[in-house]
């Protein structure tokens, strides 16, 4: 087998078959299984959660993860925050001609590893190869199915959110963005910050299984906490007040944000969940989250209030107030 991806690997012929067998089936599947056009699944659930996401990132390997880990965790998390238990994933690859087979192997193995952690099966997939320069190394799409043990539809719609509910996050914000930025080598800085990329299914199920009154959940990805909270304020037509000093941000992340003119509230995360919880249960939820290694720095960071509906307002460290808007375009470093 050659050591780089060639257009032959996408031809559908021998090379394609070899690639599927030697790399994908080896990591994801059952070597004895007959390759068919569809996966046939057993799903015992009246309702299912169904989601899809595509992953592009530069660089494809970064401290704390890689594009494959991201592709599994991203879709697992989208299912998990709906209250579903993730069961099956599909994985489709667009590969650039000339891409190293060894890199592909690393990515696929990383996906298999995460799938095992998340207890999901990767049951179908596809590969296309495009001419050099037509994509950046590798793009991955994953689609996922999850089942419900309870009717948690309200967690997605936010319909039960009410005044007095507490806002909880499971740890420090912005680690993923800064880790990736550092790995890009464009900025002459080195950091030991790792991406927080992780599957949150277990952490979330810990809370749901304990019968906690969770009213709303979202994973805090692109656009950051600020964007998710603005979406929520809009949906529920209530105000949101954040206590900025309680929002966990690593000192090193904060420092780089100061230098680059970024606001950590707008940075992307890949292993963070926002929970809106009934105030009676809030402290218990934080305790449950803290018992999981992905929730050690969980905190209550604010409240749902009646003031300023549809608006997110931060109480600043010094006791002032500021409006926290939705992200407008990509955050650009400010120099002047």
């Amino acid at each position, binding site marked *: 087998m050659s050591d780089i991806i060639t257009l032959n690997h996408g031809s559908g012929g021998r090379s394609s078959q070899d690639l599927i067998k030697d790399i994908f089936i080896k990591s994801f599947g059952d070597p004895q299984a007959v390759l068919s056009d569809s996966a046939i699944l057993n799903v015992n659930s009246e309702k299912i959660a169904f989601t899809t996401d595509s992953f592009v990132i530069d660089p494809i390997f970064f401290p704390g993860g890689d594009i494959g880990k991201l592709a599994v965790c991203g879709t697992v998390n989208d299912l998990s925050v709906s209250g579903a238990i993730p069961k099956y994933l599909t994985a489709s690859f667009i590969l650039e001609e000339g891409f190293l087979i060894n890199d592909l192997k690393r990515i696929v193995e990383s996906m298999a590893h995460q799938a095992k952690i998340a207890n999901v099966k990767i049951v179908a997939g596809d590969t296309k190869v495009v001419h050099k320069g037509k994509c950046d190394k590798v793009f991955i799409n994953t689609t996922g199915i999850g089942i419900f043990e309870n009717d948690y539809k309200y967690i997605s719609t936010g319909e039960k959110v009410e005044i007095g509910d507490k806002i909880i996050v499971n740890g420090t914000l912005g680690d993923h963005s800064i880790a990736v930025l550092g790995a890009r080598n464009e900025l002459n800085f080195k950091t030991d910050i790792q991406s927080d990329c992780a599957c949150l299914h277990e952490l979330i199920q810990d809370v749901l299984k304990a019968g906690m009154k969770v009213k709303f959940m979202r994973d805090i990805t692109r656009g950051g906490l600020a964007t998710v909270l603005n979406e929520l304020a809009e949906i529920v037509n209530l105000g949101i007040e954040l206590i900025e000093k309680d929002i966990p941000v690593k000192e090193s992340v904060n420092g780089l944000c100061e230098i680059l003119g970024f606001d950590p509230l707008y940075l992307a995360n890949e292993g963070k969940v926002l929970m809106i919880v009934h105030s009676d249960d809030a402290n218990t939820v934080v305790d449950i989250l803290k018992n999981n290694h992905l929730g050690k720095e969980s905190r209550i960071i604010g409240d749902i209030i009646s003031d300023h509906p549809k608006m997110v307002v931060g109480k600043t460290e*010094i006791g002032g107030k500021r409006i926290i808007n939705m992200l407008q375009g990509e955050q650009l470093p400010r120099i002047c």
Partner: protein
Amino acid sequence: MKFINEYRDSEIVKKLSKKLHRYNDLNISLMEVCGGHTMAIHRFGIPFLLPKGIKLISGPGCPVCVSSVNFIDKAIALSEIDDVIITTYGDLIRVPGSQSSLEKEKSKGADIRIVYSTLEALKIARSNQDKKIVFLGIGFETTAPASAVAVQNAYKENITNFYLLSAHKIMPPVMEALLNDDVKIDGFICPGHVSTITGSKIYDFIPEKYKIGCVVTGFEPIDMMQSIDMLANQIFNSSQKVEIQYSRAVKRDGNIKAQAIMNEVFGNRNDFWRGIGEIPDSGLKLKEKYKDFDAEFAFNIDVETKPENPACICGNILRGLKTPKDCSLFNKVCTPINPIGACMVSSEGSCAAYYKYQNYE
């Protein structure tokens, strides 16, 4: 964290706020002339902590806002040349020119790269000998020395494919222009970063000639609150002078070495300030010795810049005479997504800040 959390201590801020409330009857307007201060004021919600009698007004301190439309048009024209790579700080990327923005041109395929320092731009020049690398020089005395160093290095190393398109400006002339205008300014919150380079001495003429106080200020909430207190105190006691609150970074004489490099490379010229107009000797241009690195000299850029919308009152807003609410375009035609005037262009601009906070402050 060293030098951040110490200056965000809410107890100290509270004390300063309480202290400031004794000046409630003063009825004064203090102008900050640095975009960094405008950002900090909103980021920390400082207006909430001031008595009603102390008003903060934002001056022309955001270099992105005051850069002329013509400058952006020229940068775009340069980006359309085949072998040109435009290098720029991220700040400029979304600023609209007459027809387009660098961001839009980048999407269409122009080679426009965001850099974090001028030396990075120089590095791109070294590794792309067959291309011409233009760096867009914006900013006041803070960023001008960095541009000067890049030009000086290019000269020393005989790099022939590096050019500077300068929109660099300096602070004192615009402050004087505002004082000669009918703007009500009772004190200047002077820029911290500019002053690390220039020293506080550049403001000496302001209390001497105009009897207006100046306090060089840092960017943390305690810095800002303390400076406001110092200015109020000067006004209360009629003892207007130049003071340095930001003494951990700024000296009276500034950074002599940086000043020398700036003077070696740049000379003054009349410059156009978006929203304000032409101000004598307020811009920086490469000196004769470095002419070959001047993009305006090296490239024949002829752009036709459309006049700005006559209904836009940014000039009066930048001078503190009007507020965004007085403008007929504000929040109708002119929004952060479709900015018409200078003050809406950058997130540091008064209109953009006002737009964001209008329902609240």
